[in-house]
């Protein structure tokens, strides 16, 4: 028994060991992995139950010196890497990676000569002192080694481009590829290396630079948490307009997501932050980050104070949360400004408070009673919007308000009725001693919401309204109820007490709504529960006698509920991802209840489709010609589907999956799909079916079709098109269906040859000639030996394969003797002969068919393409605020009067950007922008190509000069009663005769422009002239006073 128990203990211990997470030290690599279960760390690796790896000495980290670089790693890993990279093993324990940088030291490098004239460029300690020549290269002529300079370049360990000497040693530095600037060294070929530009040149971002995409799908330039509060404070004021707060504080963020974008290797990569706004993208300079959104912590800060029954807010983290208030503002006595929001919360720290200035509460007493302040997140998190998760009492219910009671006091005024008084007396109700009952914010404080009692009506009072539960208040006049329904007919005081909804203070409702939205994917609903009472006796319930037996109160019940936000019943699901950002389940489902999220190709391929559609498309077809079709006829098949779809086909039966099908119809997502099949023929009796696997004896073929709609529904059972081919011999000559490039195309300038390709309906042999001849005579020439030979033969597909049936039979070859005379064209005649397999086997029935009529193909000569203009070039002067430089290129001639596609690239120093198509091209004018230009010399290469293949290239220098200097006065002189100044650049000038320079610019008089750079004004002798000029780039200067006596 004792053994059994011991065994059980050992067994359980063993089990817990196997499944517990721990630290695994991989002996063969020296790396330590956290949170690895024992059974995932096989021997000889070392496992320790401490998941953090702190308890495993092998996992102690340290600084590993590898040549000039230092890495923070384990001792074992350092040993392996040092050995593999040929460095001396140097490792020392360290608790932080930051300490390693101090160990990074420059190596002493130089030429090490051995065996008389052999040389190696190496570290000092790798060489004997007498042979070491510090700082010298092996190719240094003074060392007289056998290593000579070469033009070859190579990437070396430090990541820079160096020349290589004839012994393979590092020679002169060619380029410093600075990673932080976005460059890495890359070997183009064995003898050529270069600094590869990883930056996203077209958008002006460096490699590794990242930025945030905010909830509106646009770039977020500042911390979204700060934006919220800045805006709130800006908008704070004594009177808030309805909806103002909603626009700035409580954004309706349902279905939104943060993204980080990063420039990597010249491309922008979108990295989604966690969906449901569980992560928020925070920009921080050039390094954006998706950080966890602690929205739930904000709600946790709301604690119910059992003593007061009010919400007590504790530790509402101002970084992520804020307290909802409405008009909860302060005003220091004698000041106009009202202090709200965050400042109000910390009002004691304000200088006015410290100075002892009296503070006035701007908020109404009403609001103080409501216990409405709540700590809510600045950025809410989203909820599961699946319909199965909707609940009336979900998490949103913390935004419920009520039930609350409202008492309407009986005014014992002259009209002996229930009334709300106007103006100053109006508040007497609110501020009466009955206030202790709490008006719960129900009663609108705005008299305009109430109809004045004029004491004039007869028979005016309350009336009974059936089904009152949908009518919170039913104090209506005599218009709306019959005498029988009237209640308290003798109350003449009230013409109409209120209409539905109006009685509630709109500010309260707004606040409750905002607060609800602030809970995240919640929606508020105002529920009036009517006056207290029973349905049996409405009258009794209206004139509520009150719990204390008072007869002069009406009790209203009020309940505001916060419910889960629900998507609209129907939405345009395709909008998800239409902004170029990945669609996700949350983004999709927020669009509409009909939207369903799918990931057909994985988590990165989310699409949002309408879930109402569970049916695969219905397919119909038409074909031309009808069955039976002549052999090798091109059969046009038109598929019609009853919804947009994407269709594929197979020529043999496949599995039930559309993805496995081989051929696309037309690649379109539409209701009509048209495609052609070049149907072959039936096998002749003498042909062996094994030699023609795709042909049948009976000439019957099946085409299997599947079409898939946007919701991913497709017909598992294929739609079958039966095609039947006549069993008669093929008596129709081959037909050319399409030329590539098409006839009437241009040929490159001065070129007499062009390779072309064409598609036929059947396998054939084809020839061309410049004259329209019989097929047998086409292209026939005599060689030197007097033998006939054919130079004008095309190379053609002559096998019948499934691919050929689906895509056609192709021939290709080169056409020669094309005219180079501009404006002229060359006409080629092409004829073909079908059934190459019958060569030598023709009989009276089965014969090869030749084209009687030639297919004509025309090629036209073209001009050379020319680049005629590029701007700007040479020195380009701009102001310091320049955002980009607009570049423009013009092309002329070529095949289509200068129309071409042009691209450009920049070279700054030795660094080349990649080619980029002009933003506007495919015309004779090509325009683009160089973003974020810097003051430097740009070399701009341009390359254009037109439809004929004509190319034109050019390089231009553009020297960007930033003008930071104000205009200088070159000369000032007097002439014919004028003071004239001459400047060194274009500008505008003003002058004044007093107050010195300070006021000239604003209050000075304009000087008259004589030329671009010359200005004059009438001269008053003995009077000082203060002149200030500003150039076109905003640089200005005020010059020393000028006085002419």
């Amino acid at each position, binding site marked *: 028994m004792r053994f059994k128990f011991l065994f059980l203990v050992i067994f359980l211990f063993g089990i817990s060991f196997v499944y517990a997470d721990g630290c695994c030290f991989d002996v063969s690599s020296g790396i330590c992995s956290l949170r690895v279960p024992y059974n995932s760390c096989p021997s000889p690796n070392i496992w320790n139950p401490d998941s953090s790896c702190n308890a495993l000495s092998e996992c102690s980290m340290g600084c590993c010196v590898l040549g000039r670089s230092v890495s923070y790693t384990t001792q074992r890993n350092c040993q392996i890497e040092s050995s593999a990279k040929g460095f001396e093993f140097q490792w020392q324990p360290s608790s932080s990676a930051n300490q390693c940088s101090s160990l990074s030291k420059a190596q002493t490098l130089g030429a090490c000569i051995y065996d008389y004239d052999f040389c190696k460029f190496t570290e000092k300690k790798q060489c004997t002192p007498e042979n070491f020549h510090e700082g010298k290269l092996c190719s240094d002529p003074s060392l007289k080694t056998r290593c000579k300079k070469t033009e070859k370049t190579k990437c070396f360990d430090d990541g820079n481009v160096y020349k290589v000497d004839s012994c393979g040693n590092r020679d002169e530095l060619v380029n410093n590829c600075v990673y932080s600037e976005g460059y890495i060294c890359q070997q183009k070929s064995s003898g050529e290396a270069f600094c590869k530009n990883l930056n996203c040149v077209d958008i002006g971002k460096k490699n590794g630079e990242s930025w945030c995409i905010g909830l509106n799908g646009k770039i977020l330039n500042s911390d979204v948490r700060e934006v919220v509060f800045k805006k709130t404070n800006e908008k704070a004021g004594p009177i808030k307009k309805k909806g103002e707060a909603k626009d700035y504080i409580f954004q309706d963020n349902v279905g939104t997501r943060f993204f980080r974008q990063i420039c990597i290797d010249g491309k922008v990569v979108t990295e989604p932050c966690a969906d449901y706004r569980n992560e928020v993208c925070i920009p921080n300079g050039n390094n954006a980050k998706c950080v966890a959104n602690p929205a739930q912590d904000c709600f946790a800060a709301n604690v119910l104070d059992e003593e007061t029954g009010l919400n007590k807010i504790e530790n509402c983290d101002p970084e992520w949360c804020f307290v909802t208030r409405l008009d909860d503002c302060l005003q220091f006595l004698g000041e106009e400004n009202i202090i709200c929001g965050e400042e109000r919360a910390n009002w004691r720290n304000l200088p006015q408070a410290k100075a002892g200035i009296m503070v006035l509460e701007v908020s109404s007493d009403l609001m103080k009673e409501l216990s409405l302040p709540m700590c809510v997140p600045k950025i809410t998190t989203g909820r599961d919007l699946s319909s199965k998760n909707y609940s009336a009492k979900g998490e949103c219910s913390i935004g419920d308000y009520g039930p609350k009671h409202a008492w309407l006091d009986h005014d014992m005024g002259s009209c002996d009725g229930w009334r709300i008084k106007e103006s100053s007396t109006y508040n007497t109700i609110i501020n009466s001693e009955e206030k202790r009952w709490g008006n719960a914010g129900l009663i609108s404080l705005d008299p305009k919401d109430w109809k004045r009692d004029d004491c004039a009506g007869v028979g005016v009072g309350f009336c009974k309204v059936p089904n009152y539960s949908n009518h919170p208040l039913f104090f209506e006049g005599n218009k709306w109820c019959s005498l029988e329904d009237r209640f308290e007919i003798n109350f003449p005081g009230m013409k109409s007490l209120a209409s539905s909804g109006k009685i509630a203070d709109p500010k309260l409702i707004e606040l409750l709504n905002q607060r609800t939205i602030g809970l995240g994917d919640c929606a508020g609903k105002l529920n009036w529960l009517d006056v207290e009472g029973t349905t049996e006796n409405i009258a009794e319930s209206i004139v509520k006698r009150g719990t204390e037996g008072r007869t002069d109160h009406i009790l209203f019940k009020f309940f505001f509920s916060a419910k889960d936000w629900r998507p609209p019943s129907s939405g345009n699901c395709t909008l998800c991802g239409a902004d170029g950002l990945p669609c996700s389940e949350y983004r999709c489902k927020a669009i509409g209840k009909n939207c369903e999220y799918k990931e057909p190709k994985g*988590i990165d391929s989310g699409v949002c489709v309408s879930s109402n559609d569970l049916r695969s498309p219905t397919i119909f077809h038409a074909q031309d010609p009808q069955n039976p079709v002549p052999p090798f006829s091109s059969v046009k098949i038109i598929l019609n589907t009853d919804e947009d779809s994407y269709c594929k086909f197979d020529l043999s039966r496949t599995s039930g999956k559309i993805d496995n099908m081989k051929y696309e119809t037309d690649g379109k997502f539409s209701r009509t799909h048209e495609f052609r099949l070049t149907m072959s023929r039936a096998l002749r009796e003498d042909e062996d079916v094994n030699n023609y696997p795709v042909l049948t004896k009976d000439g019957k073929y099946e085409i299997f079709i599947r079409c898939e709609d946007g919701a991913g529904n497709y017909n598992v059972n294929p739609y079958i098109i039966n095609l039947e081919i006549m069993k008669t011999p093929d008596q129709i000559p081959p037909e050319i269906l399409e030329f590539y490039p098409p006839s009437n195309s241009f040929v490159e300038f001065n070129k007499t040859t062009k390779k072309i390709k064409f598609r036929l309906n059947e396998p054939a042999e084809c020839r061309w000639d410049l004259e329209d001849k019989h097929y047998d005579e086409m292209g026939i020439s005599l060689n030197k030996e007097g033998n006939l030979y054919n130079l004008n033969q095309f190379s053609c597909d002559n096998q019948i394969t499934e691919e050929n049936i689906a895509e056609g039979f192709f021939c290709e070859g080169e056409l020669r003797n094309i005219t180079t005379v501009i404006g002229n064209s060359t006409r080629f005649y092409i004829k073909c002969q079908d059934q190459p397999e019958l060569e030598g086997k023709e009989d009276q029935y089965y014969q090869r068919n030749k084209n009687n009529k030639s297919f004509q193909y025309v090629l036209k000569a073209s001009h050379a393409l020319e680049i005629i203009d590029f701007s700007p070039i040479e020195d380009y002067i701009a102001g310091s605020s320049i955002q980009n430089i607009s570049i423009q290129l013009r092309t002329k001639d070529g095949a289509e009067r200068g129309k071409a596609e042009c691209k450009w690239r920049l070279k700054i120093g030795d660094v080349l950007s990649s080619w980029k198509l002009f933003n506007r091209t495919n015309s004779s004018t090509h325009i683009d922008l160089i973003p974020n230009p810097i003051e430097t010399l740009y070399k701009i290469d341009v390359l254009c190509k037109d439809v004929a293949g004509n190319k034109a290239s050019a390089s231009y220098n553009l020297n960007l000069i930033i003008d930071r200097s104000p205009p200088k006065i070159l000369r000032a002189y007097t002439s014919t009663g004028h003071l004239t100044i001459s400047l060194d650049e274009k500008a505008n000038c003003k002058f004044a005769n007093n107050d010195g320079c300070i006021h000239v610019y604003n209050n000075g008089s304009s000087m008259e422009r004589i030329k671009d750079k010359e200005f004059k004004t009438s001269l008053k002798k003995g009077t000082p002239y203060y002149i200030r000029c500003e150039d076109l780039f905003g640089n200005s200067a005020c010059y020393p006073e000028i006085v002419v006596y």
Partner: protein
Amino acid sequence: MKNRGKKSQITLFIVLGILVLVGIISLFFLFSKPEFVKPTKDKDFYNEITPCIKKTLEKVLPEYLEKGFYFDPNNKLVYQGKDVSYHCYTSAKKTICTRNDAQSKTRIEKELKEKILSDVENCFKDFKNSNPSYKIEMGELNFSIEIVPKRINLKAKREIKISKGESEQIISNFDSYLDSSLWDLIKISNEILNQESSCNCPVDSCTADTIGLMNKYNDYAITFFTGSKGDRVYTIKDYYNKTKLNFAVKNCDKTP
């Protein structure tokens, strides 16, 4: 006469000396079994086999990396139309994931070896078939893979006796290597997973600091994609040879 006799004697000694030397050299070649015989001028047998071995690995490596160090992952998701294995997984909400043995170098070496072993064997068979004019006898194949910094060593030991007429040579070492960033990929992916699995869930975001890692490992682009259900796929791409490693993580899932 005396002089002539002396001269003859010296000549005799020289001749004898040469004979002895030739004898010793012959004996050396006769009794020593060369480990590696330099191929004949017209045939480089070593270089007929090793490129084939390298190709077998080159062929499978991209798929292996895109799937995350597994050829047939058990626990996987689909990313860019392909299966990608989870390296750290938890099905529970707001909890830290548990890792598997994905980063074990020994396991990776073993799996790669097993995947290509039959193809490596075929390299030898093809070699034999493509040299019908030679008599080729092969011993047992001893093959292993070793991942080291910057490369993968392919260690193939097999004694092959190649004979044609009188001449015969024996080759037994077909070691070669492939330039590869696999070592670094294991190391970087491990750092990502260490960050993921040591995060303060659910307070902090568990996404690894990919930008920090890129600053540490300048030769690699490291990106991630977080899916709708909280799955995250990391991609590490070598700028130089475009090698791409994908692996998935399901960690500290806070989706509702």
